[in-house]
């Protein structure tokens, strides 16, 4: 009996939810929707061709230009850069200079001895 009345109350509550009003969609909503889809489709197509904008934006070219300039300069100055042969010559010249120093050094160290000998001879 108790359960039956409880069920009745629940079903009455369930029916009471009918009192909540329903709303109608506005007419403008539909036109607004189709306008939005049209503009989004346009955006989609403009995105496909946006590489043009990317291509012609000069700031995008700055790193490419810098790399190209570096390449040209390196090709131009390539002849002025020392080759391995040049390095060999320089090394040899340095060695010769050192040899001269060594020779002088020998003379300097032997100078007192040479002097003494010259005295003894006298």
């Amino acid at each position, binding site marked *: 009996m108790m359960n039956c009345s409880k069920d009745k*109350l*629940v079903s009455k509550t*369930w029916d009471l939810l009918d009192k909540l009003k329903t709303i109608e969609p506005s007419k403008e909503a*539909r036109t607004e*929707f189709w306008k939005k889809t049209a503009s989004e489709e346009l955006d989609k197509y403009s995105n496909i061709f946006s590489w043009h904008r990317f291509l012609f934006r000069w700031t995008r070219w700055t790193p490419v230009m810098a790399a190209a300039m570096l390449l040209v300069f390196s090709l131009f100055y390539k002849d002025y850069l020392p080759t391995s042969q040049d390095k060999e010559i320089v090394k040899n010249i340095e060695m010769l200079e050192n040899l001269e120093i060594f020779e002088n050094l020998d003379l300097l160290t032997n100078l007192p001895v040479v002097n003494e000998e010259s005295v003894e001879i006298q």
Partner: protein
Amino acid sequence: MTQLSDIQIVKKAIDGDKGAFNELMNRYEKPILNFAYRLLSSRTEAEDVTQEVFLRAYKNIEKFEFRAKFSTWLFKIARNLCLNKLRHTFRFPTFSINKPLKGSERDFQMQIEDKKQVSPSSNLLKKEMQDTVRNALGSLPKTQKIAVILRRYEDMSYEEISEIMGCSVSAVKSLLNRAKQALKNKLSYYVQK
């Protein structure tokens, strides 16, 4: 077009028939709008959500798998968008200085335009009853509210509700039972009258 089934219309819409999509909107715009309205309690927000639901459906209609009903798919999108909106309003509540204290401007216009000869007192009672039911429904937890709206107003089966909500059928049944009990307690004054 009106005699065709949803599946047939969806196939046409996938082929790029805008008229077919318009027919789908004719069928489901009102249910989706009312679902969002009951969940969000704001006409403007419900209209925004409805528009977004159909925009997403339009963009992703090729992704629709014919395993489920089209309406289930739409309500699933609507549910997700409504929950996002609720989360957002919970985090960033906004107050309009132009908004009347109770009901929207449109509600007020609708009352003026009402051509039926109803006495002001019964009108007031009706309004009060609506507010009470709305408040009772609004006080339910989100999941219970969604289950009630889909079952009571959209006449959906437990299976459909479970698919939309992403839970089991038994979970839906238990949600509905708890919601009914809570509503009974909240609306007992009106029920026993």
